[in-house]
């Protein structure tokens, strides 16, 4: 039953976006978020929206995949939208019963929800076109400067990639233990919240024990293969910029110039 969960939303396809260096995508996503939140009029908003649509077309990922991410936050979106709509003071446009909609409220509600939607879709383009491993590599390399401030960047990214490797194994293990306890008459479905939580003990204890055992084995195996932290390590696939990445950076730069020029003019 747990087998069906697919983790990491990577969507394999051949596209310009898929072959870009993860650092380019991380940087562009950051630029996208900044511009999205500094777009405060219709023209600027249109620029953001249009460039996003262009990128979606480039990604070769079906649009339905991007919208999937929205399902999880649809309730949040509605609540936030409604609060903004009704509870913002300003010149009243419509009012009925005890509720009233102000001009500022309407503007805020529309702006806020569309920003949220664009934010989710925009960032999911990055996760859909980048494998989790590329992402950790990209993060390690782009955050490398933080080593100077004693942030263990290499260790964190190593932990992330090991987690990615072991998540499917632990999911499978959960499935197995669950079945084994069900064969002993365990019931994971019925009962109230507290009973349910209590019934999880026979599942969680073995799972933790197993996770520790695996961690122990793995650390031995890593040591046996001369692992000694990030110092002096080389890479089989080091991140290297190519001409495609350079062109992408130029596009992002042009986008920034265009956006802020318009912002200053208007």
């Amino acid at each position, binding site marked *: 039953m747990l087998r069906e969960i697919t983790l990491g939303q990577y969507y394999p396809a051949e596209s310009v976006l898929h072959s870009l260096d993860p650092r380019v995508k991380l940087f562009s996503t950051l630029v996208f978020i900044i511009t999205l939140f500094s777009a405060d009029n219709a023209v600027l908003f249109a620029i953001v929206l249009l460039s996003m649509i262009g990128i979606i077309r480039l990604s070769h990922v079906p649009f339905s995949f991007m919208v999937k991410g929205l399902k999880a936050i649809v309730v949040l979106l509605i609540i936030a939208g409604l609060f903004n709509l009704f509870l913002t003071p300003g010149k009243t446009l419509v009012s009925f019963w005890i509720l009233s909609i102000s001009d500022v409220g309407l503007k805020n509600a529309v702006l806020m929800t569309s920003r949220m939607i664009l934010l989710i879709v925009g960032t999911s383009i990055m996760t859909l076109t980048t494998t989790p491993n590329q992402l950790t590599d990209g993060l390690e390399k782009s955050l490398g400067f933080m080593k100077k401030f004693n942030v263990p960047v290499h260790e964190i990214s190593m932990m992330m990639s090991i987690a990615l490797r072991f998540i499917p194994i632990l999911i499978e293990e959960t499935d197995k233990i669950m*079945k084994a*306890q069900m*064969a002993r008459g365990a019931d994971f479905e019925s009962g109230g919240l507290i009973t349910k939580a209590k019934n999880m003990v026979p599942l969680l204890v*073995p799972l933790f024990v197993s996770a520790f055992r695996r961690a122990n084995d793995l650390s031995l195996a890593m040591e046996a*293969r*001369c692992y000694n932290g990030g110092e002096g390590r*080389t890479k*089989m696939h080091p991140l290297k910029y190519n001409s495609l990445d350079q062109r992408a950076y130029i596009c992002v730069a042009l986008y920034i110039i265009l956006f802020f020029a318009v912002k200053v003019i208007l």
Partner: protein
Amino acid sequence: MAIIRSKELVHEYIRRDEEGNVESIQLALDHVNLNVEPGQFISILGHNGSGKSTFAKHINALLTPSEGTIWVDEMNTSDDEYTFAVRQTAGMVFQNPDNQIIASVVEEDVAFGPENIGVPTEQIVERVDKSLKMVGMTKYKAHSPNKLSGGQKQRVAIAGVMAMEPKCIILDEPTAMLDPDGRADVLRAVHTLNREKGITVILITHYMEEVVDSDYVYVMEKGKVFMEGKPREIFKDVELLKEHSLDVPQVTLLAHELRKAGLDLPECVLTRKELVDALTQLGMKKAAAAQTTEKPAAEADVDKKNVLILDHVSYKYSPNTAYEVKALDDVNLSIKEGEFIGIIGHTGSGKSTLVQHLNGLEKATEGTIYYNGQDIYDKDFDIRDLRTQVGMVFQYPEHQLFETTVFKDVQYGPKNQGLDEKEQIKRAYEALGLVKLPEELYLASPFELSGGQKRRAAIAGVIAMKPAVLILDEPTAGLDPKGRDDILGLISDMHEKRKDTVILVSHSMEDVANYVDRIIVMDAGRPAFDGTPKEVFAHYKELEKMGLAAPQVTYVMNDLKEMGYDVDASATTVSEATESILKACK
């Protein structure tokens, strides 16, 4: 010049309490002296807890000696300066295939070692390709390790060590968790490395058949080397090996029994060919006429009722997606009350999926199953009750232990059945008695028990529900020969006492042949053969094509039969074979 040399090596595991005072000292290695020449293939045999793994970790400087010295390529491993050089010279492969693969892509995992020692990028790519080719895994370069079989994962792990270009490779029970196919693949890869690349190999194992081809064997017990020599010298002393409950290859055992009975055979026989050749020298009786193997009369248990009936059962994983896999394909079976059945098949043959249907953990996509005449997919049918009637012991059942004491853990099943406390306690007590766990352990934490004890406790947890049908999925996986014999003997004893229906899932023909009355061979989601062990093993040639091997004696007997000797080709156990050969020699 020796590549590995140990002198009076001692290692103690010291357990300390919270204040750091010494609680207990366990002597894991007791003055071990050992010498390995470059290019040799060395095996170290021994039970779990004999100290063989502790020794392996010394060669790789994962552990350092408490006393004595060990040199790897003339480097003293206790010297911190050499730690990484030692690990680079002597690479290590561990038992659990999953827990030693670090990266999510095969080639990246192989690159992990070279990356750590700072090999330049271009050379890493070269080394990775070369290593993957050595173990025959080039095709899977870009795959995720999660999609590989156990044997393939182990070969990736070997490639990962080879990419560091070591002089020596240590394998710590690399095949203990694999099926026969995977075992054969891994061993083949290791032998190739030894022969063609001149890599020194140290194979740690408890499977006797695996050491037959090695140059030198050390047998360890209680931290000491208690036997050493060429395989032939070791296997000469069958009685001594048996005394220490070490396994002997079936052929060697058969030869030994025949010699004891007075036949003039060479002192140590290691292979099937040697035995057959030696036997033909003796002038056995030839069969009078071309005798066809008569079919044993069908047993008269027609009156016994069917407990479980599978009616056209099919099962697909992830139906209607790209990942659809047909795990069961139109299976029809009936299982009678009181039968002792072995289900055999290689990994992926559908045997585990099949048994998970019997207690309703998986639901058939097509067809139905009847338990005592009732359709288990009927909406009025109580599926939770079925699970207590058809008890299921999973593979590595000790991984499901969770309670604070063994006794409470065993009580868990009866408690879920809704029995009152008095009955729960009674059931747990009975079950623990049946699995012969010493009483002083009842109140111990299950995590403090040894491997074999844990497994017994976990089996008790299922038996405590008093199921009418008991299913055990690979109950001997990962155990050493002694543990394996103990558990199989226990299951067989319990079957005698409880007269219940027992279904034993296994990939080892030799294990099963000695105990069960009926064997079902699964292949590609269907039962390929179904009958008594004798009937099934008569198809030994077809079984081999399915990646399953019949017991070694079956091969010997069939070889003799084909040469026209008057022996019973359907003998499946050593004692049957001995009897038949002796008769032919008179």
